[in-house]
C-alpha cells in the first residue's frame, strides 16, 4: 500500500495554500508531516482525504488514481487534534459506525469493535457516551474507530496535541504498535520535532505550503538539504549566523573565526552557518573549541539541562547543555561552539557542507 502525490496544489480564492507537492508515503512505518502551525500539514491531509478540492495534480493510492474519488469511497480514516466522536452514540456505536455504513454483518462488527476496544483499553466504556469519557478515552475511541475500520490509509492530525503530558507520552508509545502490521499507510502530522524523531520512519518537513525535505527521519535530521529544513527540524530553534569563507577560514563578523578543513572545498564567499543548540556550550570541551561571546537574555532550567538565549550580531542564539549553569541574565557570557557540527548553507539556502550528529 502506498499513497503517491503528483504535483498536487491547493488554491483558495487565488491564494496558493499548498505549492506543487510530490511525495510517496509507504506502509510499514509512520510518515510524519512536521511543520509549524499554518505550514500546511492539515491542508495536505485534507487533500489526501478528499475533503478539500485539489487545484492541480493527482493522488494515487496503490497505483489507483483517486483524485476524483469522493471521500466516502477512498476508504480512509482520520483522527483529529480535537476529539471528534458522535455525541449521541455510545462508544461501541462510535467505533462501529464506519462498519455499519459499509453494511458489515452484525457478528463481524461485534468482533472488530471488541478487538479495537481491547487494544485501546476501552472495553469497560463501550456503553458510555463520549461526554462521559476523559479526553484520553475520547481520543482512544477515535483511534479505535480508525483501527476497526481497517482502512487503507490512516491520517492522524496532531492526535496528541490536546492531551495532557502523561497521556501524550503513553499514547505516543502505543501508537506505532497499534498500526503495525495492519497494512495501512499512516500519516502523522505534528508540530513537535521530538515527536517526529520518536515516531517517524520517514518525515516530510513542511514550511509555508511547501515540502522542504522528505526522507528517512534520521537522515533528514542529520543532513538537511536547505536552511529551511534545518530550521523546521530543530527545537529549540537552530542557531544561524552569516559567515564569510576565505580559503579554509570561516569568519563570523567580529565574533569569531576558525579553520574548517571539512568545508575547504566550497568556493570562497558569503554563507550562512547553522548549528544546533546542543553544540553550543557555556564551557569549552575537546570538541567545542570556537569561542563566542554574547549577552545572556533568557535562561531556562529543565531538569538536568540548562538553556540560555544570548544575543549575537545576526540574531539570538540558544545554548543547550547538560548540568546546571549559573547564568546571570544581562551578563556577557562566553560560549563555545563545535565547528565540526556546523552546517554551511549558500545564500539561496542550499546546503554546501556539513551535516552532523
Amino acid at each position, binding site marked *: 500500500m502506498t499513497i503517491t502525490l503528483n504535483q498536487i496544489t491547493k488554491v483558495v480564492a487565488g491564494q496558493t495554500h499548498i505549492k506543487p507537492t510530490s511525495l510517496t508515503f509507504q506502509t510499514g512505518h509512520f510518515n510524519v508531516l512536521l511543520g509549524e502551525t499554518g505550514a500546511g500539514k492539515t491542508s495536505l491531509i485534507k487533500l489526501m*482525504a*478528499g*475533503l478539500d478540492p485539489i487545484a492541480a495534480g493527482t493522488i494515487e493510492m496503490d497505483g489507483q488514481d483517486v483524485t476524483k474519488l*469522493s*471521500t*466516502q*469511497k477512498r*476508504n*480512509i*480514516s*482520520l483522527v*483529529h487534534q*480535537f476529539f*471528534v466522536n*458522535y*455525541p*449521541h*452514540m455510545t462508544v461501541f456505536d462510535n467505533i462501529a*459506525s*464506519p462498519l455499519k*455504513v*459499509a453494511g458489515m454483518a452484525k457478528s463481524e462488527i461485534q468482533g472488530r469493535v471488541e478487538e479495537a476496544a481491547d487494544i485501546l483499553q476501552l472495553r469497560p466504556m463501550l456503553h458510555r*457516551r463520549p461526554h462521559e469519557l476523559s479526553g484520553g478515552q475520547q481520543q482512544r475511541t477515535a483511534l479505535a*474507530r480508525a483501527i476497526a*475500520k481497517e482502512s487503507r490509509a490512516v491520517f492522524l492530525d496532531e492526535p496528541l496535541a490536546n492531551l495532557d503530558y502523561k497521556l501524550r507520552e503513553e499514547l505516543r508509545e502505543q501508537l506505532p504498535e497499534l498500526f503495525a502490521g495492519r497494512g495501512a499507510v499512516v500519516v502523522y502530522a505534528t508540530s513537535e520535532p521530538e515527536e517526529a524523531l520518536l515516531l517517524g520512519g520517514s518525515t516530510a518537513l513542511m514550511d509555508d505550503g511547501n515540502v522542504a525535505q522528505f526522507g528517512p527521519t534520521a537522515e533528514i535530521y542529520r543532513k538537511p538539504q536547505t536552511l529551511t529544513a534545518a530550521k523546521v527540524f530543530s527545537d529549540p530553534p537552530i542557531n544561524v549566523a552569516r559567515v564569510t569563507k576565505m580559503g579554509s577560514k570561516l569568519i563570523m563578523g567580529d565574533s569569531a573565526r576558525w579553520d574548517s578543513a571539512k568545508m575547504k572545498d566550497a568556493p570562497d564567499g558569503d554563507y550562512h552557518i547553522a548549528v544546533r543548540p546542543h553544540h553550543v556550550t557555556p564551557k569549552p570541551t575537546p570538541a567545542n573549541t570556537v569561542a563566542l561571546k554574547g549577552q545572556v537574555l533568557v535562561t531556562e532550567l529543565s531538569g538536568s539541562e540548562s538553556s540560555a538565549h544570548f544575543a549575537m550580531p545576526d540574531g539570538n542564539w540558544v545554548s543547550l547543555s547538560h548540568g546546571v549553569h549559573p547564568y546571570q541574565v544581562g551578563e556577557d557570557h562566553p560560549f563555545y561552539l563545535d565547528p565540526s557540527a556546523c552546517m554551511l548553507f549558500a545564500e539561496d539556502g542550499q546546503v554546501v557542507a556539513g551535516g552532523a550528529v
Partner: protein
Amino acid sequence: MKTQNQKAWFFVLPVLLLVAFNALIPMMTVVNYSVQETFGNNVFFWHGLGWFEDLLNSERFHAALGRQILFTTIILLIEIPLGIIIALSMPRQGFWVPVCLVLMALPMLIPWNVVGAMWNIFALPDIGLLGYLMNTTLGVDYDMTQDPFAAWATIITMDVWHWTSLVVLLSYAGLVSIPDAYYQAAKIDGASSWSVFRYIQLPKMKQVLTIAILLRFMDSFNIYTEVFVMTGGGPGNSTTFLSIDLVKIALGQFDLGPAAAMSLIYFAITLLVSWLFYTLMTKDEGK
C-alpha cells in the same frame, strides 16, 4: 438548633404578586364561574360540575375539538418537515445568510390580525389576487366563503406561510452549531447524506425541534385571531375551532358558566399534551 431566617420569603414576594395578578386571580375567577349558574343581576347559584358534564357530552364541543385536533395535526405535519427542509437548504456562510434570515423572519413580524386581513383580501374570489387567479386563470372553483375545503386550505396555507419560519430559524440555529469536523468524520466513515441527516443533523436539532414542535402545537391549538378575521368560523361551522367556539359561547351567547368550564378543559388539554410531549422528548437527556 439551627437558626431560622424567614427573610427569603420577602424576596419571593414580588414574583408571587406578579404571578397572582396575571395568572392565579384570573384563573380562579374562571374556576369560580365554571361551577355556578347566573341569570344576570350578578346573582349566582351553585351548579357543581354540571357545566363540565354537559360540555364533555356535547356534540358541539366534540366537533370543535375534532376540528382543532385535525387542524393542529395538519399544521405540524406540514410545518415541521418543511421547516427542516428549508433550514437544510439554507446557506451556512456568505452573503446570502443574512438575506435568507431576514426574508424568513418577515412573516413572523406581521401582527396576527393583519395576517388574517391580508389573506382574507388575498383569497376573496372576486377581488383577491389569489381568489381571482384561481377562478379565472387556473379555472379552479375556489371560494373560501362558500366551500369548507377551500376555507381549510386557505387557513392552513396562511398558517404555513406565517409560522414555518419559526421552525426554519430554530432548525437553522441547531444546524449551524454543528462543527465541520462531524461532517468530515461522517464523510470519512462513508456515510450517505441520509445517514448524515439521521445520525448527525437530526440528533443535533433534537432540542430545538422539541421547542419548535411545542410552540407550534400550542400556537396552532390556540389559534384564534387569523381565523376570526378570515372566516369567522365559517362557512357554516367548518372552521369553528375551539377558541372561536369558546368566544361564541362566552361573548355571543354570554353563557359564562359553560364558557368557563370549556376554558378550563381547553387549558388542561393544551397543558397535558405539552407536558407529555416535553417529558417524552427530554426523557433520556439526563443519561
